[in-house]
């Protein structure tokens, strides 16, 4: 198997497999899941049986189904957020790099300011002010995250802007839009993809943390983070309920990281690890 014209390492293949599986579950949740995520099917915490492979949850809903729908919510949400934050981060970052001068200064300083805000607390305040509806959740985290993307995007772009083929484009009289989209972006994709993977994981865990503070995804929609939270007490009573979502989160994160590590290794760059 090859990607970006490089052969995939074993771990990377495992990682891709995991990611693919999760995406599949996320996309086809309604078809795959045996029951609806909100349907109440029996007593709370009923044990696993042939109808309900993982048993029922705190409201007597099918745990497996919720796990599958959870994939949809968790992954979907994180993807949307990460995508948005990358859009913001890349556009501003590249703009800063290409424009340089005071534009660069202004943007960078503003980002520094945002970075100096403790993310979790910041999000906590905003969400408790505006309520944790999905749109608010998405925008808030995306904006907070885009600051980190900005930094990477900018540094990558700065590196590329100085290269002759960009200079050649400028000498030709190309506009900045062409330069960003045709000359810089294609070459910035590999490092940015790696970062995308990492940021995806962070978002993922961040949402989980917010859910823990009761500000993440709101019920009844299932999401792994809040599932772990809702079921957490059950560890104390030897029930595996919270293990499933936690494991799901862990496996996906690890999978993504395998792929990312591989990308970083082939592009041998230290960046991208930044939290």
């Amino acid at each position, binding site marked *: 198997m090859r990607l970006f014209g490089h052969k995939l390492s074993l771990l990377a293949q495992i990682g891709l497999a995991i990611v693919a599986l999760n995406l599949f579950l996320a996309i086809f949740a309604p078809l795959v899941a045996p029951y609806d995520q909100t349907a109440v099917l029996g007593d709370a915490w009923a044990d696993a049986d042939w109808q309900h492979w993982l048993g029922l949850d705190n*409201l*007597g809903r099918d745990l497996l189904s919720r796990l599958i729908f959870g994939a949809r919510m968790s992954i979907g949400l994180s993807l949307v957020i990460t995508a948005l934050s990358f859009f913001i981060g890349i556009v501003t970052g590249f703009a800063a790099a290409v424009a340089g001068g005071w534009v660069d200064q202004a943007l960078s300083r503003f980002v520094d300011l945002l970075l100096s805000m403790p993310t979790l607390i910041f999000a906590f305040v905003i969400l408790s002010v505006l309520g*944790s509806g999905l749109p608010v959740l998405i925008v808030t985290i995306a904006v907070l995250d885009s600051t980190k993307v900005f930094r990477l995007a900018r540094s990558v772009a700065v590196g590329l802007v100085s290269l002759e083929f960009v200079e050649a484009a400028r000498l030709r009289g190309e506009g900045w839009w062409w330069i960003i989209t045709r000359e810089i972006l294609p070459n910035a994709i590999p490092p940015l993809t790696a970062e995308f993977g990492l940021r995806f994981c962070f978002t993922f865990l961040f949402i989980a943390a917010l859910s823990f503070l009761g500000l993440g995804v709101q019920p*009844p929609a299932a999401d792994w983070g809040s599932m772990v939270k809702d079921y957490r*007490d059950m560890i104390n*009573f030897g029930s595996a309920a919270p293990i499933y979502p936690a494991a799901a989160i862990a496996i996906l994160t690890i999978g993504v990281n395998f792929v990312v590590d591989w990308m970083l290794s082939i592009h041998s760059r230290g960046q991208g690890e930044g939290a």
Partner: protein
Amino acid sequence: MSELDDLSARLIKGAVSRREFMARASALGASSLAISTMLGTAQAAETPKKGGVLRLGLAGGSTTDSADITSYNDSVMIDVSHGLFNGLVEWAQDGKPVPELAESFEPKKGAQDWVFTLRKGVKFSNGQEFTADDAVYSLNLHRGDTKSGGAASMKPVTDVKKLDKYQIQLSLAAPDADLPYSLTDYHLLMVPEGFKDWAKPVGTGAFALEKFDPGVRIVLKKRPDYWKEGRGWLDGADVTVINDSSARLNALISGQVDAINRVDHRAVGLLSKSPKIQVVRAPGGWHTVLAMEVDKDPYTNPDIRLALKYAADREQILKALFSGYGTLGNDHPIPRTDPYFNSELPQRKHDPEKAAYHFKKAGLSDPKIVLQASDAAFNGAVDMATLLQADAAKAGIKMDVKKEPADGFWDNVWLKGPFVESYWGGRAAATQMLGVAFAANAPWNESHWNNGTFEKLLADARAETDEPKRKAYIWEMQAMLSNDGGALIPAFRDWLDAHNDKVGGHTPHGGFDMDNGMILDKAWLKS
């Protein structure tokens, strides 16, 4: 469940013996677990011992806590304050008001005025004696221009005056036979006249404040010669604030605390498997409400209200939200434990057909039914909305759930939206509960319930001192609300505490968790 609850309620009130209870309960097919938990109640049988420090792990504390009695709003300070102070009247386990710092009380002018005779020779922790002036001052803290949460209970009181050193009189706007109940409000505690320095509280309670770290840890130390007979056994108390439910459980299981409140209902079953741990289950007045404002469409239509009431699968809600540790609601706010509970009013059952029938009867093509829900209303509120939505769908009723931000819920949603979730902690007296939530002029009349007959019945009930008559009135009101009212009340929740086998005298109380906050006053430690 219901019959068992009734039974256990009566056990609590001592209406049945333990043996009798065991027999009946198991006959009713209650699991041994259920019985044991209900028996947790019957601890009282054993004989108390002096000494020891009781370690409590309590939810309901915050860094914003203060010893200021007007500021209390949650378990930690309520429990602590009952170790530091006493009230004039105590709310006994049988649900009746009994004298505390007031030796006795009697109604005047058909219960429009009340005279309280104070206990003599009770000393504050600063040595000075408790007298009428202190009582007047303390009560007035909650009247007029105040932040006190106790203001509500004192609202009907028009005047508090000292008759002599040991007698005060409260005058009311309208007669109220249940005033003593009002005085069991946990805010209405006695402090010395003019007392302000809440950093060093002075009270008549069994303990003195040793260490106060708000939202973290509170340490109380026994003070000599506590006046109350058969109370105040402990040498001291060490209260740790643990708001996270499983952290609380772990603390109890790993023996870092002796007793906790607000046991997660999901955990009860598994907790009581442990021989060392006793779950204390107290059926009470805490109930969830789905308030429809009867003067806003479509809820003006009684059939819509009935349709929703029939649609709700109360058994399921009770199971899902409280794992069954509660009692079914009958769309009126009076709990089974209340002496005035209307036991002949048929329990409304989940009945999609009836629901569908009433919905059609209402004849509204598309009534926009939107329930505004938020976990700020109560834990699991959104779950409940979800369940109700599913139930309604079964009856062909389209109901939307609008999730509201937790923040500012009580400001912006409650009392504003036409169909909103909320809860009530219950009141000592039936008439209070009915009055505070359903009297036409009551500020918190969520359902905008305004019914002449009801108003009259309420007034009469308050003024009436003849038991059978009162009972008739109150039963009538419950029936009215249940059949016509705008409040859909699916379930009452039990108070669930737990303690390890060292703790004695931790008895269930329908009023509030931790023995209605009296735990420090009542409990003791076995050797």
